């Protein structure tokens, strides 16, 4: 990962210098080393600040909506760094005509899985000052104020990386990657099946417990590449959703069900919603439920696998499953 980072920076500088691109959308170190945040680099010098490490989990596809549209008369060409899973979101946005493809130069970057600082902390580390990659590629050295320690990377991955979709880029102009595609990792529907196996009362209690933590900060909506409507239903005071304080902790159900429904069939399962949630709500379980249902009812469909696909909720067949089959029998 470290080696690839130097390659990315030098290639980005090269492309900026020869005028192929005039902007770079990448990650920059934030307040803390594990706070890598999306950033638009506009000069070659500023690219020294570009980082690519185990904490660059943010999906940059959504930033291309705004950055791929030329505002002035200058020709615009933007370099964007996309990890394999981010390319699904990029494709989905292309399908929805939200990104001007001609203005984008995609530099596909290889990924070995991103780490979650909270999970590293759960291993008992306090006062973390830095993290180093070990040569074996399987462990990290955690430097703290109280001494160094080691963690196994597989134990501290971000949820979306635990269920990695594969290391193959679905769309790119150029690739800097030195890992091979190992296919999907883990069973991403296992969590959904666990909940389905509960009784209705238990399911209700589970979601009540999780969703009552929601503080309606809208981070999930703002980070979600599928949630890119110019005007959001939740910003409309007359929608009856945003206009009042909650009287019942479970009112958040409405926000989350509707949000998940609005992205159903378009969600690429990029996992950003759960990753950015400050309260740690497993929001991906909503999206995965929809993906699982869509796969079961209407055949396997992966949003963003290729640009120009027709989504399952904007198409139909005459012999579709009747909703009665779901409400009477509870799905398949």
């Amino acid at each position, binding site marked *: 990962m470290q080696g690839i980072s130097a390659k990315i920076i030098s290639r980005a500088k090269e492309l900026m210098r020869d005028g192929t691109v005039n902007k770079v959308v990448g990650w920059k170190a934030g307040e803390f080393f594990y706070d890598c945040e999306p950033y638009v680099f506009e000069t070659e010098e500023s690219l020294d600040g570009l980082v690519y490490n185990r904490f660059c989990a943010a999906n940059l596809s959504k930033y291309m909506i705004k950055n791929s549209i030329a505002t002035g008369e200058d020709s615009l060409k933007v370099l964007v760094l996309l990890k394999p899973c981010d390319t699904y979101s990029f494709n989905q946005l292309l399908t929805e005509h939200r990104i001007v493809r001609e203005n984008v130069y995609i530099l596909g970057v290889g990924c070995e899985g991103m780490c979650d600082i909270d999970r590293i902390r759960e291993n008992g580390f306090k006062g973390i000052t830095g993290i180093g990659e070990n040569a074996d590629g399987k462990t990290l050295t955690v430097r703290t104020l109280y001494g160094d320690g080691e963690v196994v990377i597989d134990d501290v991955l971000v949820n979306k990386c635990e269920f990695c979709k594969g290391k193959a880029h679905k769309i790119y102009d150029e690739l800097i990657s030195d890992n091979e595609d190992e296919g999907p990792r883990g069973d991403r529907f296992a969590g959904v099946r666990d909940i389905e196996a509960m009784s*209705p009362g238990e399911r209700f209690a589970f979601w009540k417990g999780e969703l009552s933590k929601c503080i309606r900060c809208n981070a999930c909506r703002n980070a979600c590449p599928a949630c890119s409507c110019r005007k959001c239903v939740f910003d409309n005071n007359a929608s*009856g959703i945003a206009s009042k304080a909650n009287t019942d902790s479970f009112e958040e159900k409405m926000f989350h069900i509707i949000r998940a429904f609005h992205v159903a069939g378009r969600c690429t399962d990029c996992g950003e919603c759960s990753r950015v949630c400050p309260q740690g709500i497993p929001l991906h379980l909503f999206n995965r439920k929809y993906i699982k249902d869509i796969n079961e009812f209407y055949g396997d469909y992966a949003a963003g696998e290729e640009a120009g696909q027709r989504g399952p909720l904007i198409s139909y067949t005459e012999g579709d499953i009747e909703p009665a089959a779901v*409400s009477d029998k509870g799905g398949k």
Partner: protein
Amino acid sequence: MPVNEQKEWKPKIVAFCCNWCSYAGADLAGSSRLSYPADVKIIRVPCSCRVNPIFILKAFERGADGVIICGCHPGDCHYSTGNYYTRRRMALLFSMLDYIGVERGRTRVEWVSAAEGARFSQVMNDFAKKISELGENVKVGDLRCRE
């Protein structure tokens, strides 16, 4: 008089009926002197496809015990294809409601044509019976709407 002043519990059922088939079916049920429960409140929509998932959640939030959506039979939609989309959307939404623990059976989609007055009455009687069996849906209601 406050609307919610009720001595004994009666199910509150919201029925979204499409203008072209089911609403006319309800009309026919009425003019044929067929009875269906007074607990069913009909809301006319241009097409079953007009029913936004928010409508259904909103109905539950306002204290509905059951929500039923009626539309033209697949293939007979006045707008050609509206009900095909309803079918997909509602299958997913109902599955999701089940997933968060709202009992199955509180939501339903039925296809009722304008000529099926008898069927309309039968469907509504069945649904009201089912909701009465399930009892009060207190779980998803908004506290303020219950007082």
